[in-house]
């Protein structure tokens, strides 16, 4: 049993949501008579949710610094509308319009960052104002009428990678991506193992190889699933954008000074400031980044929808926030990872997709999603407070101590909403 832990590395608790996700996929696959694990459904799943998952990356970072951004839906809608208007009325080429939209996102982020970091207005209030300002802005500039977007943007919102090369029975672009991913995973794992060995780690090689084989099996299956759809379809472009962002932000949050700063500021602002972290700068950059990602999500959505509408983005912030918390972030800040957030977002996306395949109405779907959010966070909180292991931990007899977070930090997340605004 200890070996299972060694294969996965670290604490098994973080895999709870992964197992929930797999169980959901398999369960829905059986319940829907085999319609869940199909190439087209998984292509839809990624193209249809990429925008929420992209927002969730930024939202995770905002929540880690101990704030929240309520404006992302409005900002996404506003930037998407600006792109459509620039292309239609100003005659900008599609890339010019998209660039204007993304730069606008950065500008909006700087606006939020200014009020949060320089003036010291809590993020909740700054972005509540932003939510109103930019929702009103969308309606104002569009006269509440949908505006068609440049056709080229569809490639980014729902496009497929090209077909080329010999007939392998799969989409070759997807196949290539899969091979690159497998090679990268194998190289990274072995490299890591080598480094660890040099510093005196005792992990045997076979655990690393088992892990590599398992991961590669998953990637290989995904490549097969995405590549074997209709000719002309592939791993969707919005999904690829998402994967690139996940890798970039995983590295940013885990490996850079800025990444360490956001966790430090979120964990204990005063201590971080005393140890030389520039707190306002960290706040500012995080807000700029959030609105930039919101703009990107808005542009991609407009591409998929083929036009920008006045109600684009309504409630997207809530979907993103739900993904972050299902991914195990703490309301009090300081805790949360990009990968866990993606798993949280995918749990919601799979639930949505599976319930739709079963023909469950949106009313009941909402109820179920609400309950899942509550259950996921309650389960997390319960575990942390009790200092007990998760169900998975029990199953595998994991007897070692839990995560490094103190029980205090964990239990403060037991009262969602109570500490949304960190003391200034």
């Amino acid at each position, binding site marked *: 049993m200890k070996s299972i832990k060694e294969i996965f590395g670290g604490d098994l608790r973080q895999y709870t949501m992964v197992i929930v996700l797999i169980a959901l996929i398999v369960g829905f696959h059986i319940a829907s008579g085999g*319609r869940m694990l199909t190439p*087209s*459904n998984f292509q*839809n799943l990624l193209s*249809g949710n990429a*925008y929420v998952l992209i927002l969730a990356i930024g939202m995770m970072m905002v929540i880690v610094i101990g704030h929240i951004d309520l404006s992302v839906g409005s900002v996404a809608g506003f930037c998407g509308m600006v792109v459509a208007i620039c292309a239609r009325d100003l005659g900008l080429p599609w890339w010019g319009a998209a660039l204007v939209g993304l730069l606008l996102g950065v500008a909006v982020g700087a606006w939020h960052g200014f009020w949060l970091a320089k003036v010291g207005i809590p993020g909740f209030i700054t972005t509540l104002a932003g939510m109103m300002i930019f929702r009103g802005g969308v*309606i104002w500039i569009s*006269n*509440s*009428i*949908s505006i*068609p977007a440049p056709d080229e943007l*569809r490639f980014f*919102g*729902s496009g497929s990678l090209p077909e080329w090369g010999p007939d*392998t*029975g*799969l989409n070759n672009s997807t*196949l290539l991506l*899969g*091979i690159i991913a*497998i*090679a990268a*995973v*194998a*190289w990274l794992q*072995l490299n890591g193992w*080598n480094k660890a060995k040099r510093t005196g780690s005792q992990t045997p*090689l076979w655990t690393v*190889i088992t892990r*590599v*084989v398992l991961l*590669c*099996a998953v990637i*290989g*299956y995904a490549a*097969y699933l995405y*590549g074997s*759809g*209709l*000719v002309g379809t592939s791993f969707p472009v919005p999904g690829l954008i998402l994967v690139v962002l996940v890798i970039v932000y995983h590295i940013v949050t885990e490996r850079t000074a800025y990444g360490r700063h956001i966790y430090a500021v979120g964990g204990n602002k005063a201590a971080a400031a005393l140890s030389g972290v520039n707190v306002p700068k960290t706040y500012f950059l995080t807000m700029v980044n959030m609105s930039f990602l919101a703009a990107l999500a808005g542009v991609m*959505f407009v591409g*998929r*929808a*083929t*036009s920008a*509408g*006045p*109600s684009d983005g*309504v*409630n997207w912030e809530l979907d993103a926030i739900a993904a972050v918390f299902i991914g195990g972030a703490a309301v009090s800040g300081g805790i949360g990872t990009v990968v866990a957030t993606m798993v949280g977002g995918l749990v919601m996306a799979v639930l*949505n*997709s599976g319930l*739709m*395949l079963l*023909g469950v*109405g*949106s*009313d009941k779907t*909402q109820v179920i999603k609400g309950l899942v959010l509550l259950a996921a966070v309650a389960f997390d909180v319960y575990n942390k407070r009790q200092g007990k292991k998760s169900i998975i931990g029990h199953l595998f007899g994991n007897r070692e101590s839990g995560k490094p977070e103190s029980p205090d930090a964990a239990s403060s997340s037991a009262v969602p909403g109570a500490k949304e605004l960190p003391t200034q």
Partner: protein
Amino acid sequence: MKLTKKAVVIAAAISLGLSLAACSGTRGETPPQSASNEATAATGGFEAGSTIGVSLPWLGTQNWKEAETQFATALTEAGYKPIVQAADNKVPQQQSQIEAMIESGAKVLVVAPIDGKQLGTVLEKAKDAGIKIIGYDRLLENTTAVDAVTQYGSIETGRVQGEALLAGLAERKGAGPYNIELFGGGPADPNAPNFFTGAMEVLQPKIDDGTLVVVSGQVEFTQVATAEWDNATAQKRMESLLAGNYQDKKIDGVLTPNDGIARAILTACEDAGQDIPVVDGLDAEDESVVSIWEGKQYATVAKPTPELIAQTMVLIQALQSGAELPPPTSTANNGKIDVPLYELTPVVITKANAKQAFADDPAKLELLK
């Protein structure tokens, strides 16, 4: 040694990926399912008892709730497998629902869009899978993937609303000139501007000759539109119009695009201490039927759901048997192609003809007591 180990693992991993890839082989030029779709569609129809998807915008007004249940019943009775879903007025939700219907092997999609311009990608996906697409109640715009649209003529509906308002003013408020205000529906709904255009065709001549006076001067659709058809938004706009323009005036009538907005406006006028103005409406919602019977709301324009569903069923049956669609009543350009329209004429209901209009509808008759 170190290097060779690494190389072995990488090679193993890659070969695993490749072997998984190689065991595909199911990937044809088109998937078997939709290939047969297209083949049969070309030679005529599809299997009886196939799945039919119905995507509705939401269930927040009575007509959509009625459409939901009646579509399920009508399709089941005709031997089809219905999937009827409503999207909570969220465009991404509707997009995903339509994709799920494609996944479920639907042969026909009946789509009542939240925003007629925002479904392009998913509808084209459906078209590529050989699925026939019927727009229901609203035009599907900015896409080539639409085969027919069934709806109540929206310009005609607006005209009828305008005429009802004039008739009501003459009946209840004596001789003119009359002070009126104008309201429009949700701008994202392609019908809303048409309703307004139709109504203004009737009202504009009367405004020009001074019979009608729009006291606020707000006569452009963008000024009078009610975002999302939201009743509360309309009520707030009416309250501010009354406060700003009617301190020393009486309001005689309001052009109202639907029943919910009509009731919101009656409430706003009552709260402001005005006499009840003449309002029309749309959809013959139960609450408004009661209000008409009590003599408050003057009229509503009914677009009976059963008739529209019957019309849609005729088209579905024709598509199933592979026959030509019946000749459309007209066509409309949706920005990409000319779409065949199958339009029905709406019915005005006032207190005078309510009993007769609802003679076949026991649930509505129950309200007239």
